[in-house]
């Protein structure tokens, strides 16, 4: 279980300019959809964008705070 603020902080620790939208899919605060906009996605394939996001949330994956995460990314023009 993770609240929105902690999730955003976690993502921004790796992707500082991330604009994050979070949807709690199940009301249990551990299954989420996220939409992340960032300039860090420039020149990255969809696979690499998702690898970057997964790297950011890894601590919460590892300790079980996030059980499921569907990721969408959008390039933020800088």
């Amino acid at each position, binding site marked *: 279980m993770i609240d929105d603020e902690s999730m955003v902080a976690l993502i921004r620790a790796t992707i500082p300019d991330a604009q994050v939208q979070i949807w709690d899919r199940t009301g249990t605060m551990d*299954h989420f959809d996220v939409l992340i906009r960032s300039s860090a996605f420039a020149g990255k394939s*969809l*696979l690499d964008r*998702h*690898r970057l996001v*997964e790297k950011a949330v*890894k601590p919460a*994956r590892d300790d079980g705070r996030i059980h*499921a*995460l*569907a*990721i*969408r990314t959008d390039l933020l023009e800088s």
Partner: protein
Amino acid sequence: MSDPIRSEIDREIADNTILVYGKGTKDAPQCGFTLETIQFFNAFGYPFEVINVLENMPKRAALSEMTDWPTLPKVFIKGQFFGDTDILGPMAHNGELQAVLDDAFAGRNIKPTIQLR
């Protein structure tokens, strides 16, 4: 290449044009994303295989390492890694995936049973 887990994975990827490593089986998926991936490929109508690695931690670790992708399911098409439906969904939407699948099954006389509009 003497690693038996890696050899097993290589063989499975070579044997299945569309291969999903997931949690549970086609008939009894044990994870929402695995179910979603099965439904996704059902809609395309091409044959695909699901291999259940839920309980097989060494194999999951080997798969994560070789793909640099920590989560399940993991989808391979003609030997190439495509992540999950977060990747495949947008690719289906812009037509890219149809081209990948047409190429993967080209000359194999396998036609999809359902055509997407």
